[in-house]
């Protein structure tokens, strides 16, 4: 049995963007799916608390969840090329979500669709309604997905690596679009990414994930300028940050590999790659240490009390 996600805790507020950042396989997508109730058939979710706008989602049956999805909770997926049904028009798929949750006429729904397509920056929005997904490029399809997520004015949008599959230039556009829309519609956004650059650009708050656990949370400024968890520190050392990294400075790297997720892993999941690791790190499950509201890290030792081991000599 796999335990891809072991300890996740975060909050998102209206009008703020939370970035969940971590490397591939750390469980960020599964966390998002878990919030939405879209886990695959053979996955199980267990949580102490899952509250959305004052409503407890844990006890909510599937019917109730389905009523929330698309209406107040929306999701944008990573791969725009396959996320739309190829046998129905764009218009059909946009209208569908609105008419599912609201009593509106087809005409009114179509009008809203055109309005949103325009808002997300798709040229000739009205004519797009009759087009099929395969007639649009990846960037346009992703915009359609965003428009679709906004049809019912959701309170929370979960975007799972929405720009990873797109060109860099389009990436910037989509991110800017998301930020604008978030401001305009006062939505909460959970943006999942592995790209620290994106985090720096759009996040208000950050949750860093590693091997199924959130290891650090805080505002973007706090986490990026003063990381408290060894993993975050090591991660930032790997990335050149304009303004901070000096020319000629050597970039860091994190030795080792992500641990296997099979079976129950005891202790800190980062211990095998952490320069500060002590024997105690393998023994006890590590809880969150809160420094301030919303600012926490998951380590046995506060930043000041860690001793770095000398790096092991590299054998031939």
């Amino acid at each position: 049995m796999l335990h891809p996600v072991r300890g996740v805790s975060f909050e998102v507020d209206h009008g703020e963007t939370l970035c969940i950042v971590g490397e591939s396989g750390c469980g960020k997508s599964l966390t998002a799916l878990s919030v939405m109730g879209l886990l695959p058939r053979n996955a199980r979710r267990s949580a102490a608390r899952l509250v959305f706008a004052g409503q407890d989602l844990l006890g909510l049956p599937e019917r109730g969840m389905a009523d929330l999805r698309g209406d107040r909770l929306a999701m944008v997926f990573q791969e725009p090329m396959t996320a739309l049904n190829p046998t129905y028009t764009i218009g059909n798929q946009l209208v569908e979500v609105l008419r599912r949750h609201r009593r509106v006429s087809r005409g009114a729904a179509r009008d809203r669709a055109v309005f949103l397509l325009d808002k997300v920056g798709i040229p000739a929005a009205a004519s797009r309604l009759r087009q099929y997904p395969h007639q649009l490029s990846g960037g346009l399809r992703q915009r359609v997905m965003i428009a679709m997520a906004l049809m019912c004015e959701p309170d929370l949008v979960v975007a799972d690596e929405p720009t990873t599959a797109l060109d860099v230039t389009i990436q910037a556009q989509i991110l800017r679009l998301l930020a604008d829309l978030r401001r305009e519609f006062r939505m909460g956004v959970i943006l999942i990414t592995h790209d620290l650059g994106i985090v720096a650009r759009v996040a208000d708050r950050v949750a860093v994930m590693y091997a199924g656990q959130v290891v650090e949370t805080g505002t973007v400024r706090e986490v990026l300028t003063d990381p408290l968890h060894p993993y975050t520190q090591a991660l930032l050392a790997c990335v050149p940050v304009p303004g901070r990294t000096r020319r000629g400075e050597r970039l860091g790297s994190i030795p080792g590999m992500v641990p296997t997720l099979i079976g129950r892993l005891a202790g800190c999941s980062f211990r095998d790659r952490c320069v500060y690791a002590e024997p105690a790190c393998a023994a006890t499950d590590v809880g969150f240490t809160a420094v301030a509201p919303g600012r926490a890290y998951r380590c046995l030792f506060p930043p000041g009390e860690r001793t770095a081991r000398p790096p092991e000599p590299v054998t031939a």
Partner: protein
Amino acid sequence: MPAPGPPPALLLDAAAAAPTPAALLRRRTLRHGGIVFGGSALLLILGLALLAPWLAPHDPYDQELSRRMLAAGWHAGGTWAHPLGTDNLGRDYLSRVIYGSRISLLIGVSAMVISGLIGATLGITAGYFGGRTDLAITFLVTTRLSIPVVLVALAVVALVGSSLRVVISVLGFLLWDRFAVVMRSATQQARVLDYVTAAQAAGCSPLRIVLSEILPNTMNHLIVVATLEMAQAILLEAALSFLGLGVQPPLPSWGLMVAEGKQFMFVKPSLIAMPGVALFLLVLSINLLGDGIRDVTAPEARA
């Protein structure tokens, strides 16, 4: 960079404990319900066919008009000398059913071999050479598919005469299409594999490559189709015999027995029930076996 891991000795042991691919295959085969059931049923019927002279209580052609239309042994009025009763000419039904297995199996296997040779040759050729050869052969296959097989088979048998040999030939020359289609795609897939390219680079002739590289790797597909086509040949022969244009009386073809019993089906339904059940069991076991072999060796081919 030292990776924390088990000492090498452990790794060696792990490798030694892993079963070989052949052993894995054998294990999966023996566990597959369809293969076990289908295979054993088929072996049983094969045994019946081979041991017919010793197993059948009577001569299947022996007419005893005073004992016509007897009921089965467990009914009143029946006798255990004829455990399944007799037909309208007084022939022992059990013996005829047992001997009938010979005809079905013989025709099934022979037709399958002929159509297999034709179809596999065409399919492999098309898949290996591609291009115009492929187009021509695909055209042939499409043409063959457009032919109403039952009709043409009936017509040819009516013209040429209905002997066992004719029926086998007609079926063999008509039922090769699935062989061709499956072997063509299997060959196409095998052709792009590295060792085929290596053989080509070494200058081997196409025939040699086909025999030594392609055929062994497409054998599992071939076997699966062979079983399915054998089943189809058996059903088709039964249909032809039922319509009077297949195997001729007094041979105990199961299809023919159904036809003979049809005129009495309202008074003695067992006359048509039993050969039908026999056909059903034979075809079912072959199909289960074929499906099972496919599941075990090439599950991606599952339609």
